[in-house]
């Protein structure tokens, strides 16, 4: 195996890495924000709204990301939504992730005993303050482990975007293998890069878990 190959394709691979990280970060932020709103509405919204949102969540959780991306990327233009591959990737990852985050936050809200709301209400604490000072701090601790897992899943799923020709890491490396006819080494190196990234996220997640859960320790 010729190591100069990696030197020659180095800049291209770095561009890919940048795309992977940027799409993952922005897509995840989008997924967390939308997922929080969805989880909140599923927990406290009226019944018809909850039913509608349940349909949204079940669709995105019950179908493959690839099918969703194809629908948006190839089906979008025929209903007047024409987006470039990277935007579809970002949006698709965000919508997909939001359905899973919605479930995480819904479970978080469900874990708060109802009596807490009643107690807060009887103390005359406004709804918003109650959310900010009573509910969210408790939920925050609970949602960190599943959220870390989901962020890792989303990081790995950015590789799927290569199929839509988003110029991310897997796409760049696939391009490199096609040009050079060297397959195994680049893909193994690619796997090592993803492995490092996901282990890093898992490590940070565990650190954060310990950090915010400190008050629970006796």
């Amino acid at each position, binding site marked *: 195996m010729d190591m100069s190959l990696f030197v020659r394709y180095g800049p291209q691979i770095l561009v890919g890495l940048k795309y992977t990280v940027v799409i993952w970060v922005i897509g995840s932020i989008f997924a967390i924000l939308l997922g929080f709103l969805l989880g909140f509405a599923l927990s406290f919204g009226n019944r018809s709204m909850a039913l509608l949102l349940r349909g949204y969540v*079940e*669709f995105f959780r*019950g*179908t*493959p*990301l*690839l*099918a*969703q991306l*194809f*629908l948006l990327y*190839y*089906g979008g233009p*025929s*209903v007047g939504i024409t987006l470039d591959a990277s935007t579809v990737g970002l949006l698709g990852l965000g919508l997909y992730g939001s359905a899973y985050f919605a479930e995480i936050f819904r479970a978080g809200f469900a874990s708060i005993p109802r009596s807490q709301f009643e107690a807060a209400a009887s103390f005359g604490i406004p709804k918003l303050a109650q959310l900010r000072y009573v509910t969210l701090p408790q939920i925050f601790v609970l949602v960190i482990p599943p959220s870390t897992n989901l962020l*890792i899943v989303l990081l*790995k*799923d*950015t*590789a*799927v975007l*290569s*199929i839509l020709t988003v110029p991310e890491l*897997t796409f760049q490396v*696939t391009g490199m293998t096609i040009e050079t006819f060297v*397959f*195994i080494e680049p*893909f*193994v190196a*690619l*796997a090592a890069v*993803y*492995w490092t990234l*996901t*282990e890093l996220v*898992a490590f940070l997640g565990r650190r954060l878990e310990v950090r915010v859960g400190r008050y629970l320790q006796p």
Partner: protein
Amino acid sequence: MSQVSQSALILLIGAGTTLLVSLAGNALGLVIGTSICLMRLSQARFARAIAIAYVSFFRGVPLLVQLLIVFYFLPAVGLDMPPFVAAIIGLGICSAAYQAEHLRGGFLIIPRGQAEAAHALGYTPTQTRRYILIPQAMRAAAPALVNEIILIVKASSLVSVVGVADLMRVSQNIVARDLRPIIWYAAAALIYFIINVVLARIGQAVEWRLNVGHVKGTL
């Protein structure tokens, strides 16, 4: 036969392929996963280290990249296999890592005393595993294992990339000819959805079945 009904038929055949690849991959994953899990729980440090590395690697790398490696690696070592088989192997070794962890969770809730009691009663370690530990671990892990099948069905959409004519790939082919992406991709998504709903129902039935003769709230 009209073009549309022909396409619909092709789509259904693709769905059959998806089911077949997923179930075979899942079964392979259960076999490898059980071995990995037993290695993870064994006394031998070396076996444990291998199991930990296996789980960490296959859960930490995108399935697409794993499939690409399997797809190119097998021919390079002289194993020329049809993409269909390579896809099953790829799904199997990946899902094994997840299933090993589910099973480990199942084993961990069995009280230590049971293995000791079995030893005291003269069970060999193999018998202890076969008759006492594995059945209970399977029961405890059943919900997670069924969930894993659903995840594999969705993940199997990636085998279209290595040339398997699964649901995703045939819907792409149909769209290439028919030029109505929304209809066919939505149909494909719907079929995935239906498969998953049915699997979830079967999962509930299996869970219920496994709980027969078993007091709720105990192991």
